[in-house]
């Protein structure tokens, strides 16, 4: 074959392979945006459900897009104070619910009651002593919810589903207790 033919053959092969790669990335992107995605969560506001250090969770996008995310669900939402930041909190109430919350549990017992306005949700971290949530920035418009967290995949010791109630014991501690029969 002449040099030009060889070169044309190589270019065609390269294009075919890169189309395959592009199609794969398309499929990954569509799944990530509309079906199921992963998130890295860290911070103290969801203790003991989520540890202080990094944990990887799976979130599904179907519930939030269809308006099916409700009280008890852990959700990832875009922060109303910084649109580039995503936060993970638990939904306590949806529109029309009466929420009674402790304003500042570290300093006082004062509670306030609020009705969640239409189209909004009230989110709180499980660790109310160290959580910046709806008690600070108010009810969040439903449109800011990105996905519902349903499974934890890392660290391996706490692999499993996320319940609809805040954990009362650190999930990592539960595994250690089971392995010690005495």
């Amino acid at each position, binding site marked *: 074959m002449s040099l030009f033919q060889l070169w044309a053959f190589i270019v065609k092969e390269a294009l075919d392979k890169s189309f395959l790669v592009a199609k794969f990335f*398309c499929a990954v992107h569509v799944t990530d945006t509309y079906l199921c995605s992963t998130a890295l969560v860290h911070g103290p506001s969801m203790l003991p459900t989520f540890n202080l250090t990094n944990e990887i969770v799976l979130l599904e996008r179907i519930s939030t897009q269809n*308006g099916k995310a409700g009280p008890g669900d852990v959700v990832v939402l875009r922060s109303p*104070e*910084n*649109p580039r930041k995503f936060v993970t909190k638990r939904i306590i109430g949806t529109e029309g619910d009466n929420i009674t919350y402790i304003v500042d549990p570290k300093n006082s017992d004062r509670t306030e009651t609020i009705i969640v*306005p239409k189209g909004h949700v009230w989110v709180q971290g499980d660790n109310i002593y160290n959580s910046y949530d709806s008690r600070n920035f108010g009810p969040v*418009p*439903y*449109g*800011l919810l990105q996905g519902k967290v349903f499974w934890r995949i890392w660290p391996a010791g706490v692999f499993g589903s996320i319940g609809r109630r805040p954990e009362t014991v650190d999930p990592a501690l539960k595994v250690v207790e089971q392995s010690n029969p005495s």
Partner: protein
Amino acid sequence: MKLLFGKWTAIAKESIDRAAIVAKFLCLLHVTNTYIFSPTLVYGPSMLPTLNLTGDVVLSEYVSHRLGKVGPGDVVLIQSPENPRKMITKRVVAMEGEVVSFLVDPSRSDRSRTVVVPKGHVWIQGDNIYASNDSRNFGPIPYGLIQGKVWCRVWPIDGFGSL
């Protein structure tokens, strides 16, 4: 019998190839419509006289709001804070930290209020303040609810041009 089966596989293969081309085109269309720009039908009285009551087709782009380039004076598409399935079109009047003075209910009184826009939020108002449900009613909205920026009008033809 074998000949018939051979013909059928050839037809099936060709139809799958054609369908793949259509699928690839739809993929490209979807990506462009969601992340670059797309035509949008906007209607309603709240943006008169800028946008018509009965409906205008505008081109809206979805790049600026991801880069943080939306500012006062831009007409934007927003996910309504009252109904997450509804998209509304309003103009950005003020960004976070700015002070907004607005007429609370201009068709009834001259009363005005002044508000400071909180961090991460924007203040939106329709151009037709007499018939617009906007930040004067539901408060400043988080920047994260902005979905796109309106760029120019393409229909009706005599209104063609940037907004």
